[in-house]
């Protein structure tokens, strides 16, 4: 019985490798590899990395194109990356804005672009029979975004709206702390609601960023779901055949090394906005995903404040009843991480808590902000 299972698994691997090989041949690449978890790794003729994993029976397909902006992030003014990410699904060289809207609906209505300090991700969740349309749509966003005036204005208005929606003490406190921790590094470029309106950005700036950042060598496309891997790779290959923009973009040198994240100083900033609560945010810099300590950062963060059984939650909320939102969050980026301890504070406890909480959260040192 065990032998039968082993043979079946081996057959599965052989079939997958065969499929991958065929797809690789079709695109002129013979670099397809099959990982232990069943993920096929492929590189298109123009250098786009593709990861495909079949999950039969799920009835869904998720497509995510991740773009590493590299050096473009260091050169860009605040707000450019955000507006570019929001504009790539606007009108393009091959599609009108109306056409893009139709394609969005056709591919499932769940299409979005999301930025992080390391990347811009274009993602779509769709049904298997709309897979080709969805890949076409993402391909157009990678290759042919035109940044027409209406699309950019809409993107700027949407960015304004979302920033205003996020103008709450905790999120502003976290943004201020991050900016103070990563001065001079792209991770420290954050926009607060009080910052200049991104609507003043020139289209030329957006195009320059787009052409520098959206290059095949910095792009990875992942496809997971109810698809046949060989056909999926073929579809992606076909769409990426003319994605051949070249750029000297590289990722900036790693930020904090495994040593220089240590903090001994304390830096406190008070921010005042119109709001009905006070937030206390204490943050520290930590090693990023590229560091061998990344796993330790995650475990430490969980121990210190993630979960309702954590000491932080128990001490601040359960025992004292000081605030509703109490916890810890760690965002791991490639070359650094930001670990926050946060607490909202009820007015009646404002004064005594704001003075003491950051030290309790990070006895060793922190960059903190209280936002009221």
């Amino acid at each position, binding site marked *: 019985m065990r032998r039968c299972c082993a043979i079946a698994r081996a057959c599965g691997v052989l079939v997958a490798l065969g499929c991958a090989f065929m797809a690789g041949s079709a695109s002129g690449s013979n670099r397809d590899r099959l990982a232990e978890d069943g993920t096929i790794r492929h590189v298109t003729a123009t250098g786009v990395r593709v990861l495909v994993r079949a999950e039969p029976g799920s009835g869904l397909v998720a497509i995510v194109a991740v773009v590493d902006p590299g050096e473009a992030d260091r050169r860009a003014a605040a707000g450019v990356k955000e507006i570019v990410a929001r504009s790539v699904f606007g009108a393009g060289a091959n599609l009108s804005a109306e056409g893009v809207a139709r394609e969005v609906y056709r591919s499932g209505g769940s299409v979005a672009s999301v930025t992080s300090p390391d990347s811009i991700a274009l993602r779509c969740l769709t049904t298997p029979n709309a897979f080709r349309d969805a890949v076409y749509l993402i391909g157009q966003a990678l290759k042919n975004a035109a940044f027409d005036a209406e699309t950019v204005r809409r993107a700027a208005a949407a960015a304004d709206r979302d920033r205003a*929606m996020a103008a709450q003490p905790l999120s502003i406190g976290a943004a201020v702390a991050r900016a103070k921790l990563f001065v001079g590094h792209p991770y420290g470029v954050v926009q607060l609601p009080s910052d200049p309106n991104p609507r003043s950005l020139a289209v030329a700036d957006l195009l320059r960023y787009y052409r520098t950042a959206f290059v095949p060598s910095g792009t990875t496309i992942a496809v997971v779901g109810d698809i046949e891997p060989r056909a999926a790779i073929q579809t992606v290959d076909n769409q990426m055949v003319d994605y051949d923009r070249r750029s000297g973009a590289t990722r900036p040198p790693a930020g904090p090394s495994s040593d220089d994240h240590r903090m001994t100083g304390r830096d406190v900033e008070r921010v005042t906005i119109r709001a009905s609560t006070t937030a206390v945010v204490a943050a520290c810099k930590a090693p990023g995903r590229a560091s061998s300590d990344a796993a330790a950062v995650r475990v430490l963060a969980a121990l210190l404040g993630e979960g309702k059984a954590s000491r932080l939650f128990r001490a601040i909320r359960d025992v004292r009843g000081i605030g509703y939102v109490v916890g810890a969050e760690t965002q791991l980026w490639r070359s650094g991480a930001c670990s926050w301890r946060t607490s909202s504070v009820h007015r009646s406890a404002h004064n005594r808590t704001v003075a003491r909480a950051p030290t309790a959260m990070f006895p060793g040192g922190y960059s903190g902000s209280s936002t009221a």
Partner: protein
Amino acid sequence: MWRTRISVLTAVAIMFSCSLRPACADGPRLVRATLANGVTSIVCPRPSRGLAAVDVWVRAGSAVERPNEFGAAHFVEHLLFRGTSTRGPGEVDRAIELLGGLLNAGTTRDHAHMFAVLPAEAVPDALAVISDALLGSTMAAEHVNIERSVILDELAAARNDPARDAVESAFRAAWGDAPYGRPVLSLAGDIASLDRDRILGFYRRCYRPENVIVVVVGDVSPNATLEAAKRAFGSVPAADVAGSARDSQTQPEPGPACGPVRTSPRTGFPPEEIWAWRLGRRDSRDAFMAELLAAVIEEALASARSPQSAGETFAVARADAVPLAGGILLYVASPIGVAGKAVSSAVLDSVVRRLATDGPSEIELAVARRRVLGRSLFRQETCAGLARDLGLWAMLGDAEAPIEAGLRLQQIGRADLQAYASRWLGGIPTQEGKQPR
């Protein structure tokens, strides 16, 4: 040119229809059982890399509160984590976190629910902990004041949230002083004055086995999970006193549109105008129709504004439908003060009247189906999302609705939507607040 455009759009619409595969074709199946004490269990096995979502629903929402209990539903939801006769403060959370999950809870107008995602093998233990937390809570007096302070901070934080304000304003506009019109988290004054006796009264009246539905989705064996649910919830005795959570649900009949009402401005965020309708819900088909109508209205408003939007304004109107045990809320929210060009009552009225008279076009219907199905697929992509949808719809009497969304949406035609819009939407109020119908 226009004709060509129409034919292209029609072709696209047909493609939409063809590609709209029913979600239930080879989708998940449900296994159900009802225990002698009235607890219903629903299990949906589905491959999920060793994970499972547990979501336990109770008919104990804010609309079930009696006049002297305002705020009790939300207060109870907080106190559930504060310990039981066998677990001290913090031990409920600790027990779930030791199993690899994170426990949370929420309150709606009709229900409260407690949920977690865990390794599938931990589901039986998790069900035992959640059963204890829900049905064996001590609501200890010493925790009430601590939790009161936490809830007051939550209410204050909620006031910073424009999206929540819009939905709450819509409920208030549509239902006024009736139970659905009150804020789901309650008012600070209610929380400040609520004593333990009244909290306990609400808890004993509503947190009873016959009001509970247990949902488990993920890498689990249906029979073993039903058995685990029986072990966890089966020993709780059925209520032996008359009356149930449903007794106090007296809601007004579906009625005419209300609004516009205006939300409060916040830092950097403009106030919004809200129009709201109280729609009837005989079954889940009505809920799907309301959701389709909301999608059609939102899209029609975007199109209606586009000729004027070449200049300054990009105010985005949102429309949504919220299914409830006692009806459906349909609302439209539009920011004002953004270059002064929000959706006007006249534009909205013309859209609504067209839908009530002619129904949506084929294209509008196709686009709306795709949007509604897209949102549904996105929600149900995770075990937690599917468990939430299943629990909500099971509470509304139709557990299959979420997994049959594609099929159900396909069965709703233009004439159905026109009839539904004609019956429930009519028009919107005039300046004087009169229904122009």
